[in-house]
């Protein structure tokens, strides 16, 4: 994002939504990579005994897409200063999720434009699975 685009950011602006499908074969590879030990995240019978419909995708994995989405928008990794995440409902394998964000506050301080925003992650049926807020800082020099 160049300076003129940053200058135009205002409260109420939406960050372009980002859709991603949690593919079973990719998630299995991820579990192997991180040596997942919680059976909730790889054993369907165990997950169902706990009352879930299927294997629950770990929050660490679904969180991965949030910084990626914000960095794609801001254009600068170092601009992302803070992200909060709250896992509200389970995400299952092969489900599609959509990230939606809104700018809620802007401050101009210390030669920087500080952007605060909130986001939700929803399933295709509108059910909220994750929510949180973020802080992005653009130096203006």
């Amino acid at each position: 994002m160049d300076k003129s685009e940053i200058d135009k950011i205002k409260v109420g602006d939406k960050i372009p939504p980002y859709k991603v499908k949690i593919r079973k074969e990719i998630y299995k590879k991820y579990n192997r990579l991180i040596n997942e030990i919680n059976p909730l995240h790889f054993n369907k019978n165990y997950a169902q005994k706990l009352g879930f419909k299927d294997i629950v995708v770990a929050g660490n994995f679904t969180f991965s897409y949030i910084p990626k989405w914000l960095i794609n928008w801001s254009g600068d990794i170092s601009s992302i200063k803070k992200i909060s995440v709250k896992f509200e409902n389970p995400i299952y394998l092969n489900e599609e999720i959509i990230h939606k964000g809104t700018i809620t506050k802007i401050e101009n301080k210390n030669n920087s434009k500080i952007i605060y925003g909130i986001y939700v992650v929803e399933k295709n049926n509108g059910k909220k699975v994750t929510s949180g807020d973020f802080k992005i800082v653009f130096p203006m020099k």
Partner: protein
Amino acid sequence: MNGDEYSKLTKFTSIINEIITNMGMVDVVPNEKEIKKFLTYIDDNNLLYNDKDYAIQAGFSDKLVPLEYIMNLTCPVTQEIFIKGGPELLPGIIKGVIHVGSILEFIKPIVVNHSYKIKIKVDNPVKKTGSKGNYYSVVFKLYILNENEKICAIDNHEFFFKLD
């Protein structure tokens, strides 16, 4: 809070604090090969994560560890805490534990193949009430420090648990 609940909570806090004290600062070296695989899984082509020459030209000492990956550095630490608690902790005192959220702060760049340390602190558990009864929230604060002991990232990692 009744006596039994108080006793279990005190025991929980004592076990966790002892484990954290014994663990001390946890060494971590973000593994370049693992991160490369991770980036293919989430389809992230950012050159600062994927191209060492590009990262060096941009002023970094090596490829950056993706912000997306930071929780993969901190989660194993909290996992180890609960594993070290053994059956005395789970299911002896607590009935299940679930990671419900995090607040992550990104302060300095973290690069692959460099040594870092994770410093662990824990808040006292806080009682909460929900539709399915009482439960507790506990926040582990995980600080990723570089070789100069400067904070590079923080993960305030929150769990919910129920007492057995």
